[in-house]
């Protein structure tokens, strides 16, 4: 879902940011297992990184607002069930009730040894020339798709300036719904805080997003 709780830019009410001194990488052993399991299942290629994000965005707001690794765990359970890897009955039973299905890809110990983050590249050959160049004024579209998008609400229908062309990348809005890579040009677009938040906003502040070409109109 696009207009769900995950799209937080500009919201009020979450209180102060509370940095933790000497923070450990994980705060509980179960968080480690959730992290590694989600990475490992992501490497099967059965869903894309944006498909995984969409699953989290589709959680109910109250579930989403639990801690980070609670959320990851809830999303992982949903993903493995949705892709027919695990049955609801097995989740309820807490154990496997039937053999697994075959996987094309599996994260082996050898692959894990080199793990340093998402491993698949997202850049793709361009299907055509970029429509915009650095310096162009653009207006973001006002879109509200019921499916995944990476155009945040606060930056819809706003006028900004293209600062850089970042190459041609997998289009999240398509990849999340299983519609393929649908590669699109990607641009860093800069907005003044006043354009985003109104005349009272701090004139020394600007905000950029990285926006895919289908999000943009000439302005």
């Amino acid at each position, binding site marked *: 879902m696009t207009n769900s709780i995950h*799209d937080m*830019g*500009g*919201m*009020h009410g*979450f*209180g102060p*940011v*509370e940095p933790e001194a000497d923070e450990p990488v*994980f*705060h*509980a052993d*179960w968080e*480690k*297992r*959730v*992290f*590694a*399991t989600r990475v*490992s299942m992501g490497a099967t290629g059965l869903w894309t*990184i944006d498909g995984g994000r969409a699953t989290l965005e589709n959680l109910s707001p109250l579930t989403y607002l*639990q*801690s*980070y690794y609670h959320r990851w*765990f809830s999303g992982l359970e949903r993903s*493995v069930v949705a892709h027919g*890897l*695990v049955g609801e009955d097995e*989740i309820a039973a*807490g154990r*496997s009730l039937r*053999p*697994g299905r075959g996987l094309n890809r*599996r994260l082996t*110990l050898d692959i*894990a040894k*080199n*793990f*340093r*983050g*998402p491993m698949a*590249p*997202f850049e793709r050959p361009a299907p055509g020339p970029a429509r915009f160049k650095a310096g162009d004024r653009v207006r973001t579209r006002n879109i509200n798709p019921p499916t995944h998008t*990476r*155009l*945040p609400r*606060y930056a819809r229908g706003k006028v900004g300036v293209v600062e850089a062309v*970042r190459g041609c*990348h997998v289009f999240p809005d398509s990849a999340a719904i299983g519609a393929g890579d649908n590669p699109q040009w*990607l641009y860093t677009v800069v907005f003044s805080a006043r354009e*985003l938040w109104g005349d009272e906003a*701090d004139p*020394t*502040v*600007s*905000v*950029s*997003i*990285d*926006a895919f070409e289908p999000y943009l109109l000439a302005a």
Partner: protein
Amino acid sequence: MAADDHHSSGHHPHDHDHGSELSEMQLRVRALETILTEKGYVDPAALDQIVENVETKIGPHIGARIVARAWVDPEFKRRLLADATEAVNSMVGFDPVSSHLIAVENTPRLHHIVVCTLCSCYPWSVLGLPPVWYKSFAYRSRAVIDPKGVLAEFGVTLPADTEIRIWDSTAETRFLVLPMRPNGTDGWSEEELAELVTRDSMVGTGLAKSPQEAAPRAKQ
């Protein structure tokens, strides 16, 4: 979990009563891992390895080396700002972030801050996994609308006329802030300088440490 929840705004209040909740999460997570292992989808040894990598191999020490190199080597700095993916890969010997790392330089006139308002995108391979505050709802919601307020919560106050630029990580591009080199570090080695580079200074919610803050050091 207790510490995580303590720092995650908006969580359900009963999370603080972590006795039963914690054991329930432990049990649910263990059950799912068991199911996935029995079905042959995951290898527990590979999971152990992933945890080991993120706890010991990746982390802000990598980013700190990159920043220190940029402070002492103008040609490396030029390459880093032109194409951070290439510069970092040639320096540390691995593909840093899938494909697209972007380095942005703080100056006396311009201060950069990185956020991911939509989820928790962060340059894992050069900074490690993000801290809880980076993933918190407070940071994700406010960095784009109240960056000076957020900086104040990190104890950072910039001159009033410093321009602030927020980078919202909405695609698979990842951002590394190149903080300003602290005064009083002329002649310092790359290794010594790297000790001054904090994780927060590479996200833009902090500044590099001054020599005084970094004391005691061998040099003093």
